[in-house]
């Protein structure tokens, strides 16, 4: 299993779990990154951080570090 910050452009991944030990995990879940959802990496900002993912029809920007707590397959 890898983390959301490790997927490449155009790669569609399915969320398996969200690591609740990360302080931002609650907000990440609330905003729609829940297990079973497909996510796709859409954009990277300068210095590759933050990352913009498509999830549930929305574009959400989150930092590399925060994407690290989203486990995908």
């Amino acid at each position, binding site marked *: 299993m890898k983390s959301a910050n490790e997927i490449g452009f155009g790669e569609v991944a399915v969320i398996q779990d969200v690591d609740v030990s990360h302080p931002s995990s*609650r907000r990440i879940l609330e*905003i729609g990154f829940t297990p079973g959802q497909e996510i796709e990496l*859409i954009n990277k900002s300068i210095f590759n951080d933050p990352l*913009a993912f498509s999830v549930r*029809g929305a574009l959400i*920007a989150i930092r590399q570090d925060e994407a690290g707590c989203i486990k995908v397959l």
Partner: protein
Amino acid sequence: MTRRTSEAVPLIALVGPPNSGKTTLFNYLSGQNYKTVNYPGATVEYSISKLQSKFNLKADVIDSPGIVSLTPVSPDEKVSVDALYNHPKLGVPDVLIATVDSSQLSRHLFLIKQLIASGFRVVVAVTMVDLLNKKGYDISTSELSKQLGCEAVKIDGRTGKGIFELIRQVDKVLVQSRISGKPHLKPYNDISKENLLNIYKEIEKIEEAALVKLNSRSSGFDLTSANSQLTVLNTAITKRNGRNKPDEFTLKLDRILLNRHSGLLFFFLIMSALFTSIFWLAEPLMELVDESFAFLAEFTTDALGHSWYSDLLANGIITGTGSVLVFLPQIIILFLLLGLLEDTGYLSRGAMLIDKPLSKIGLNGKSFVPMLSGFACAIPAMMAARTISNKRERFLTIFIIPLMSCSARLPVYALLLAFLIPGEKSWIGGLALASIYILAIASSIAIAALMNKFNHKIVKEQDTSSFILELPAYRMPKPSVIIANTYQSAKLYLQKAGPVILTFSIVLWFITYFPDHNPQVETEGLSEDEIVLLLSGERLANSYAADLGKLIQPFMEPVGMDWRVGVALIAAFAAREVFVSSMALIFKVTGDEETLQQSMLSAMRSAEIGDTGQLLFTPTTITGLIIFFIFALQCLSTVAVARKETGGWRIPVLQLVMFTGLAYLMMFITVNGLRFWGIP
């Protein structure tokens, strides 16, 4: 703010996730006639309004910042959530109108489910159905309301379609609540992962039931629709259908605007276009305001002759007000452009683009919007910093906001640059102004980095830094909303600045005119104009302002100026733009020339320090003044807001001492440095 004296007028609260069309709906309900603390960049406090009379329902409506859930992570969300449970001034709302973007249904229903679970009476306003239709779907509101257990109405905030029906449903709920009383609310406590996931499971069922696929012929989504009909039971694949794809146009545009290389280029292009247009677009308008006030002042003196009351009217009130109103066009244009950027959806992209660089100096991508608003006014900017969840980053943002060159500094720079640069070379003026802005931004970065590195005393808290931000779909901006918000901001600005400016103009006029208001001078062989000039000079030399000035003189001498500039600098602590009106008063500008500014410039060019014959205003001293205004924190309202927003005096006092001290030091270095190199 109106205090609710009777329970007779029901209270409706608007609530919804960010970018769900809440503010558009509020503008429609209020008829854009609201009391507001609403600025471009963020709805930071709350706005209140009576429901427009055409809806035939007597009620108050409040709007507050958008929230993702009932568990706030940043101060702006906390304001909203607290207001829902028990508004500090207005009490518990009788009914909530919750906006839901139908093209973001599953994410936006999350808040609705929490609201209903907490016992709120909710009427759902379903927005942006046009975006959903573009994805090939429609929504059944009857199914949605059956599933949720509350009424749901489709609305269009642009055309007003469906809003009467929405109000009818609100009225129905209100009638019921009159029987059963205020809702019984319980705080939302269950924030365990299991509960969050359960809510989303329920939502996915609701979504499945409420979303209806449009006729494929009309939508042009033949392939996806056929696909998902075949595999309707396989959830993993159904999720690949059209409705869970972001807006196509947005994805294409972001490929350029959020690109790692061209994104940065466009960011700088958009920012430069924003700031240059503030000056180019405003120039003709500013001239118009300037000329009208010059005409008015001259007309007054001509009509009333030379007496103390005509002097008060022409020099105290008209010139004082005019010299400040002249930059209203620039403020309006700045607000318009900021509103435009926000409404298209670009601002969140800007925040994302510079999150990494800003985080290197202890700020956050979310500092971007507050910093940008700081170029209009530091007060709404500091309040907009509430969207930053990390306290340290928020305080540091607030700390450097006074260095953003706010619009109150524009008239000051305009006057000083006009002195430095001859009129026919206005492009140099634009360039010089651009350099002032760049210097201001550069020094704010340097100061933020320094504070971040060496001073951990400002904020001791070390909570985790976070950047989670929705990038809304690009939309055509709605001119009516932008214009309404700009109008509100400009009005609010005038209401706040106007009385201060007027009071200071009159006070300054008084202390420069009295006690020796009718000095005895040798008038033999002098023309009438010369007598007037001599009289006013004599009057000023013996005035209260001169007494005050003697205290300031020791500070002004090292920077090559005299007490008259010192008085104007002190007056500018009320508000920076007061500097210009004070200069107009102290140097007794009367409308001889075509515009006020020209009269002021000629008065400034002939001003001498005492009897030494040495010119007071030279390129050196004017440059020194510009440098002073770049750094100095000369706005008492800013100090007050910084205290309120940081909950203590430490940051505002540090800002005041540090920035104003730095300003004086830099002015000293500039003036003496330039003199050393032989510049006059």
